[in-house]
């Protein structure tokens, strides 16, 4: 037993588990906010109002056209430079995930709503439902189902993106691994375990999504 508990593979684990908790927290909270942003901007992208459409389009294109690393640095250093207000690293990370994923989710929402047959809106309207009621009771539930696979995909992407926040020393998974081998020089062992921890989350997610996709297909 001793050779296990003495090994770096084992001794790195307390660090990595702490990092994993932060990684998951940033990802989940960031994505919840990102989903709300995505729903708002996704519908805005479907709007016939040119101003609403324009604002949403600028947001989506600005986020998708810039690297997330620049975005986190912008939020953490740039904004505090501008406003003089310092936000903590975890909040900055959550905001970065929310804004970044929000733009991609907006496109997921827009695509899913757009993919619902036009006849559904017409059928809803012709039984006397308003446009909003038809959206809410008929279009949205169908669109939401189609959004599950791409949303799961976005979860995996955002989870991996949090590793970039190591540049501002957020104590997420990768950063904690780096901390460990910084003092022990056991880079191979530490990074192997870091990758395994990511896979522990991403592989089951992918398998689950594949199943959901198959069920939605038939």
């Amino acid at each position, binding site marked *: 037993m001793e050779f296990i508990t003495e090994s770096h593979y084992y001794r790195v684990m307390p660090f990595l588990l702490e990092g994993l908790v932060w990684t998951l927290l940033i990802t989940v909270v960031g994505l919840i906010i990102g989903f709300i942003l995505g729903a708002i901007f996704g519908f805005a992208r479907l709007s016939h109002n040119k101003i609403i459409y324009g604002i949403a389009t600028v947001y989506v294109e600005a986020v998708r056209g810039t690297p997330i690393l620049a975005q986190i640095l912008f939020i953490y250093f740039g904004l505090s430079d501008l406003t003089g207000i310092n936000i903590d690293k975890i909040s900055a990370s959550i905001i970065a995930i929310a804004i970044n994923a929000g733009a991609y989710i907006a496109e997921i929402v827009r695509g899913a709503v757009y993919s619902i047959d036009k*006849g559904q809106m017409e*059928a809803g309207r012709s*039984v006397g439902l308003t446009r909003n009621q038809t959206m809410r009771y008929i279009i949205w539930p169908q669109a939401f189902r189609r959004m599950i696979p791409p949303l799961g995909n976005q979860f995996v992407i955002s989870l991996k993106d949090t590793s970039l926040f190591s540049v501002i020393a957020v104590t997420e998974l990768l950063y904690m691994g780096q901390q460990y081998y910084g003092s022990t020089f056991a880079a191979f062992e530490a990074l192997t375990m870091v990758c395994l921890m990511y896979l522990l989350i991403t592989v089951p997610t992918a398998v689950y999504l594949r199943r959901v996709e198959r069920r939605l297909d038939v």
Partner: protein
Amino acid sequence: MISVKNLHKSFGDTEVLKGIEAEIAEKEVVCVIGPSGSGKSTFLRCLNLLEEITSGDVYIEGDNIADKKININEVRSRVGMVFQHFNLFPHRTVLENITLGPIKVKGMNKQEAEKVALPLLEKVGLSDKAHVYPESLSGGQKQRVAIARSLAMEPRIMLFDEPTSALDPELVGDVLEVMKDLAKEGMTMVVVTHEMGFAKEVGDRVLFMDEGIIMEEDTPDNIFDNPQNPRTQEFLSKVL
């Protein structure tokens, strides 16, 4: 009951309806026939404002629906519409498809709405399908559910846009039976159809549309046996 005056409809620069005049009385069954692209669907869709009216007036029970101030949701609940491709709500059971309108538009509770819906399902011969999802139904069954869904709003007028043309031939009959029953009960109906047999048997009047206007209208007997307009003659010689 329906009065159409000089109705025009354009999509962008192309004018599809070029001045439709029509009067449809209460309890009348009017069939609309004509070549593809002549504007039949567009005409029907203007009657419940699924298409915006470019100019002209359409009176539904006295209300001018071309007037922008009209409460269109209220008008639509008086005018039922049945589509070629059924447009059932796939995420809701058959029963829920039918009760949605009464619950959300008329403010009924679930029990009240089901009390309306179940007899309608029986009427279209699908009582046993109340709790299944639309995907497990045949086309003909779907269309009968769609009819029941419209009827649940107790419309005064029913519009049908080629209700049987997406169906396998052996399923057409059941849907037409339901429509015949409705006609017998005195429902005011406007039916775009390729089913000349139905038009002959059930229709009180047939409108022949071509190039965005009503070229000829008459009783089924006169239209089919003795068409006056050369375009009508040409069309009928192709389809009969």
